[in-house]
């Protein structure tokens, strides 16, 4: 058996806060093969960005281990750590903060090339930088060489960020919401560029997003891990996750997303959550952290015992007592009905009188 490229093994991350610790990532285990695309999907506070930084070696987890080709990165010798460091690169969300305003595109791209001895002399640096610019579809590349970041549009800056990640020939790129701050009309072409890197250069991606539509499009042949309050609650191949979600949280998410199709979206019913409020990371509920909002909640079970991420078939993992019991227990009593979709009005129940008397 070959070792995966990157593996997180029971990784947790606790941040110090004024009032005790904040558990941003809680016992997460993931693994990524070379060239694979894995999407981390979750809302703000789900720990997806922190997980991404742990994978990129920018944060050291408070417990658990991060392995690169089977070796714990925090116990590597210097040379190996450097090799790992270069193998995993990161592309950030904010195109306005991810490039140093005082450097030109050339300096930004040539610095890592020269630092790691990948080019010799200025001429070679220029040639390689032009090549990189062309790779990320910034054409004609010459016109971008000596531009400052503020002279570029948001989409162009993101492309420079990607080119910068490519300077060290990485095997994995952690893309942290890399497309969410550019306009819709430009987003797709950025995604296409990334997809081409995967196909042509064999770069793997840890693609972090809050947008399931993007995850669906970018990782159709890959897998998606859904995170909630620091834990992975569902982990499965993308088509299965989108079309047959298992965890009540995933189902709620999919049911909640408005569709760009009036008929389809209005057919989606109301959310059936027990509470609208997301618990604070300072007070994560005991047992299953989703239990205060979960429609499948069973008292005495979900609020007491923490569900493990368990396989429910050969490809999918779910962390839910009820779903796991139904799918793997004797025989499921009823086919899992799409929980999020229902016509029962839960929200807006007491809107009764106001309309009548409004003057």
């Amino acid at each position, binding site marked *: 058996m070959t070792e995966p490229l990157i593996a997180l093994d029971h990784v947790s*991350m*606790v*941040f*110090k*806060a*004024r*009032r005790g*610790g*904040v558990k*941003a990532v809680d016992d997460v285990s993931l693994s990524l093969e070379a060239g694979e695309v894995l999407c981390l999907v979750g809302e703000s*506070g789900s*720990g997806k*960005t*922190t997980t991404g930084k742990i994978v990129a070696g920018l*944060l*050291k*987890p*408070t417990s658990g281990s991060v392995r690169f080709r089977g070796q714990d990165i925090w116990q590597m010798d210097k040379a190996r750590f450097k090799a790992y460091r270069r193998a995993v690169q990161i592309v950030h969300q904010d195109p306005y903060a991810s490039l140093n305003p005082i450097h030109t595109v050339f300096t930004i791209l040539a610095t890592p090339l020269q630092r790691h001895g990948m080019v010799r002399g200025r001429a070679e640096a220029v040639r390689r930088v032009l090549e990189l610019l062309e790779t990320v579809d910034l054409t004609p590349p010459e016109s971008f060489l000596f531009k400052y970041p503020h002279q570029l549009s948001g989409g162009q800056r993101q492309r420079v960020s990607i080119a910068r990640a490519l300077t060290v020939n990485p095997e994995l790129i952690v893309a942290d919401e890399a497309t969410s701050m550019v306009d819709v009309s430009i987003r797709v072409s950025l995604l296409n560029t990334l997809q081409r890197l995967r196909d042509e250069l064999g770069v793997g991606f840890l693609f972090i997003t809050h947008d399931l539509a993007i995850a669906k499009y970018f990782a159709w042949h890959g897998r998606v891990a859904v995170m909630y309050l620091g834990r992975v609650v569902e982990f499965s191949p993308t088509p299965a996750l989108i079309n047959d979600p298992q965890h009540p949280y995933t189902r709620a998410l999919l049911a909640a997303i408005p569709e760009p199709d009036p008929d389809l979206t209005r057919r989606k019913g109301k959310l059936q959550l027990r509470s609208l409020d997301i618990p604070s990371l300072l007070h994560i509920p005991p047992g299953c952290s989703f239990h205060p909002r979960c429609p499948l909640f069973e008292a005495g079970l979900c609020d007491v015992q923490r569900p493990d991420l368990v396989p429910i078939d050969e490809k999918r993992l779910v962390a839910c007592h009820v779903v796991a019991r139904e799918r793997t227990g004797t025989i499921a009593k009823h086919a899992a009905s799409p929980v999020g979709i229902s016509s029962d009005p839960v929200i807006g129940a007491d809107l009764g009188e106001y309309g009548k008397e409004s003057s």
Partner: protein
Amino acid sequence: MRQSAPVARAPAIPQLAARRLLGAVFRSYALRRVLKAALTIYLVATLTFFIVRLMPGNPVDVYIHTLISQYGFTYDDAANQAAALFAFNPNEPLLVQYWAYLRALARGDFGMSLVSPGTPVTSVIMTYLPWTLFSAGLGLLISFLLGIMLGMVMAYRREGVLDHLLTAVGSFFQSVPNYLVAIVIVVFFGVQLGWLPITEMRGAYSPGMQPGLNLAFISDALYHAALPILTYVLTTIGAWMLLMKSSTLSTLEEDYVTVARARGLRDGRIMRSYVGRNAVLPLFTQMAISAGFVVGGSVVIEKIFVYQGIGFILLDAINRRDYPVMQGIFLIITFAVVAANLLADLLYSRLDPRIRVSGGE
């Protein structure tokens, strides 16, 4: 997520209680500020002790030497004499002296004046401190209030004639050292033009006035303090104005101000409760610097106007090498500035609900 340092390990059990107590202290903004103020005063007191005790040519040795060489004292007699004056005994180990010094300070005992035998430093301070507090405090207050008002006007009328004029005047007086302003006032308005009865305005109040809380005395005190106050106001108002202007400008950009206008609130209400109150908050952090600056400036200003406040006496003590008085005055000045800062901090926490709860910086 942007928290910085990861927590290492859960604390051991015995530490928990202590940690909880510390936690409670750190959660209370007011308590934290009071502790910080106390710590500052303690550190300054310590610093002062070691300066006085350890500097080359420290006053105790100088005094003992003087007694021996000029008055023929034996070393022991001289040392005893010095001990009485300095509130510590130079023959004892340093740490014992330090402890005695701290205990004396806690009792409010600053020792005795060297130059005027029999006068406790405390009484010197009590005689002159009120006048500095009065003039510098009033100057600071007037300058702050006037500054934020003018700053808001400048922001509301930005790029207008008034804005440009006030910016120019404000920058000018902010740059020019306050004692130069005082000198110019004395030279021009006092001596050359003779518009101001500069000699008559000297002192903290007119000779023969009975100090008391009556109108006649207060107006007399104001008359004597007018020039120092004017100088403080002129030289600090520029900073307040410019700070308030930029703070107001950025507050005007805030969403809640646009929303308040969308809500149809009256302009006056928006200006006071939505713009003004939020814009003034960042200025409180400048109070530390400003209070220190005004009190520090009082040393020169009081000398120029011959206003008998604590700064005037400090210079006098330095010129006469009256070390206990110097030390006492320096401590009391620091204490006043720390107190002013504490006051500003507490006021700030009253005005900003976010501080009260989270205690963030």
